[in-house]
């Protein structure tokens, strides 16, 4: 991990220290990243075909998310995600079918039964907290989960994700402050893609690295190349272990790029130079990790082809499954307002 120039492309140091990841782990990482990417691309196809009114993407964030996910234990850690965390929630056990049900707002969508927009994840069974749209509110929830986990003497880490845009909200400050006072087992993971919708980082903050904020709370803060899953895994593992040891929270900033418009409602050509996007293509985390693994002989072309066809089959199945699922019945409108 390194403090790198956000404008720099492909020049970051990559994690070289022993990480404890086996070749099989690396291939699994790759498969999750590729699955997330392919699923994401399918969602856009459905959107363009008029079948899905709204898509929001993880494209460009896959390495950051999967590197982080591998440092966690979905059976006991709690994920408090934001709307770009498709790859993370897949790792935590949400299926492509679940995602497609949510995309098409069908009954059975486990996150919300079609009530929320796609990208609003949540599943008690998978230790993923329900998420909302208001940016950055979740970082306080993660802090509260960590407070409860500590109080209950659980070996649980709360992991929460937020965009660099979200770090401007007061809630971000309040969460880091609270967590650090109580040395809570929570990790704040900032997926910094340089934009809050159209607003570039220079209009969001006067600093180059969000990680610089950690000092104001007396917690470790690191910036890591978010296009390198192994580098992220290393940083995440350190923070998670620290949390498990009772030493308190950490802030990790993963520098990534957003390869799509903000969402299907956005038109990024109004504010982002297409050349910038093209130049960033070399940082595509999925292509890059694939190339590295092939190069290192960890992955063969045949393995890759098998992975890709497995993924296509999964996504086709999920799409068909969701397309055939019924919409919620209007009578469901008034359910679950109160628990009693």
């Amino acid at each position, binding site marked *: 991990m390194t403090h790198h120039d956000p404008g720099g492309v492909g020049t970051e140091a990559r994690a070289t220290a022993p990480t404890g990841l086996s070749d099989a782990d690396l291939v699994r990482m790759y498969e999750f990243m590729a699955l997330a990417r392919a699923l994401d691309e399918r969602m856009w196809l459905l959107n363009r075909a008029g079948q899905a009114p709204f898509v929001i993407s993880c494209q460009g964030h896959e390495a950051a998310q999967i590197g982080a996910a591998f440092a966690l234990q979905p059976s006991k850690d*709690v994920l*408090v995600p934001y709307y770009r965390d498709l790859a993370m929630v897949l790792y935590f056990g949400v299926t492509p079918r679940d995602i497609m049900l949510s995309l098409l707002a069908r009954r059975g969508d*486990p*996150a*919300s*039964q079609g*009530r*929320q927009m796609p990208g*609003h994840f*949540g*599943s*008690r069974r998978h230790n993923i*907290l*329900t998420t*909302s*749209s*208001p940016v950055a*509110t979740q970082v*306080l*929830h*993660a*802090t*509260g*989960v*960590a*407070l*409860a*986990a500590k*109080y*209950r003497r659980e070996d649980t880490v*709360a992991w929460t994700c937020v965009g660099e845009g979200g770090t401007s909200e*007061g*809630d971000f400050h*309040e*969460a880091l*402050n*609270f967590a650090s*006072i*109580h040395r809570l087992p929570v990790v704040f993971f900032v997926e910094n893609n340089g934009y809050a919708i159209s607003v570039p980082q220079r209009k969001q903050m006067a600093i180059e690295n969000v990680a610089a904020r950690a000092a104001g709370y007396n917690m470790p803060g690191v910036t890591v190349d978010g296009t390198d899953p192994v580098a992220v895994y290393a940083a995440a593992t350190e923070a998670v272990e620290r949390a498990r040891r009772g030493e308190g929270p950490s802030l990790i900033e993963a520098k990534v790029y957003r390869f799509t418009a903000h969402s299907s409602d956005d038109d990024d050509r109004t504010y982002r130079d297409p050349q910038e996007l093209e130049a960033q293509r070399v940082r595509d985390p999925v292509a890059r990790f694939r190339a590295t693994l092939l190069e290192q002989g960890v992955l063969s072309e045949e393995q890759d082809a098998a992975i890709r066809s497995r993924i296509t089959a999964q996504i086709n199945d999920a799409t068909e499954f969701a397309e055939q699922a019924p919409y919620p019945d209007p009578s469901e409108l008034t*359910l*679950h*307002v*109160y*628990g*009693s």
Partner: protein
Amino acid sequence: MATKLLIDAIRDTLFAEMRADDRIIVLGEDVGARGGVFRVTAGMIDEFGEERVIDTPLAESSIVGVAIGAAVHGLLPIAEIQFLDFIHPAMDQIMNEAAKIRYRSAGDFGCPLVIRAPYGGGVHGALYHSQSIEAIFTREPGLKVVAPVNPADAAGLLRSAIYDPDPVLFLEHKKAYRLIRDEVPENGHTVPIGKAKVVKEGSDVTIISYGMMLHESLAAAEALEAKGGSSVEVIDLRTLRPLDTETILASVSKTGKVVIVYEANKVGGVGAEVAALIAEEAFPYLDGPVMRVAAPEVPAIPFSPPLERAFLPNAETIGAALERLAAF
């Protein structure tokens, strides 16, 4: 049955439930050594320790936001907002998060959270220590809002609120804390959320109120009856959301006349919804206009005593409304 002040009924219930259930934690500004600025949590940190009685940083959004996280992860947090006037920074966490967690997850998650907040005027608290802004919250589906003023109701509703599976805003009238004393049953007494109480029966006109205005209303009712005027029924709403439509409509259908009394600004107050409910559901029974006695349309209660007095409704202004209504 012991006789207790409102504040003691609340404190004793908190202590009793914290002893009974270690999922309960308390968090807020100055709730520890200081025991809260009103002393509701006095002594608590000594008995339950810093882990269960948390002096938070001065940041309301974090108080509620952290409590939400703790609530979804197995605890029963009781968050204190020092004055209702200072709840605004937590609004997003209350409205968009706590109130919507169950609905947005289609029941997968719940948020069993109590937010206690002192409210109300008459204590020289001025613009920012006197507010009655409960109507901001009573319009929010997913939230429950209670405002007991009787000590037994407070104890019983607090207990219900703590174990309620949903977020409850628990309003405590700060002027009533050490003014209102009454008998409080022991041993796990509860009062259901959502039930109003007829505190005085009558046949000619209904007063619907809550909080300290209930006491002004009772005084007005007694003064009127003492003069040989109408027989007044007085209802304490106790719960502001969900409203007890049954009790409200039954009384108004009987008397045909109603005055709604509250110390919040008149426009858009809880009384507006009560009046609208009556005008829609009890219209055939009405023998006169649905009257409201409430505060004037100024931003908040001023500090200077003559202005504070002029702001708040009282037994006289309520009495005048009763007489106007009787003339219909």
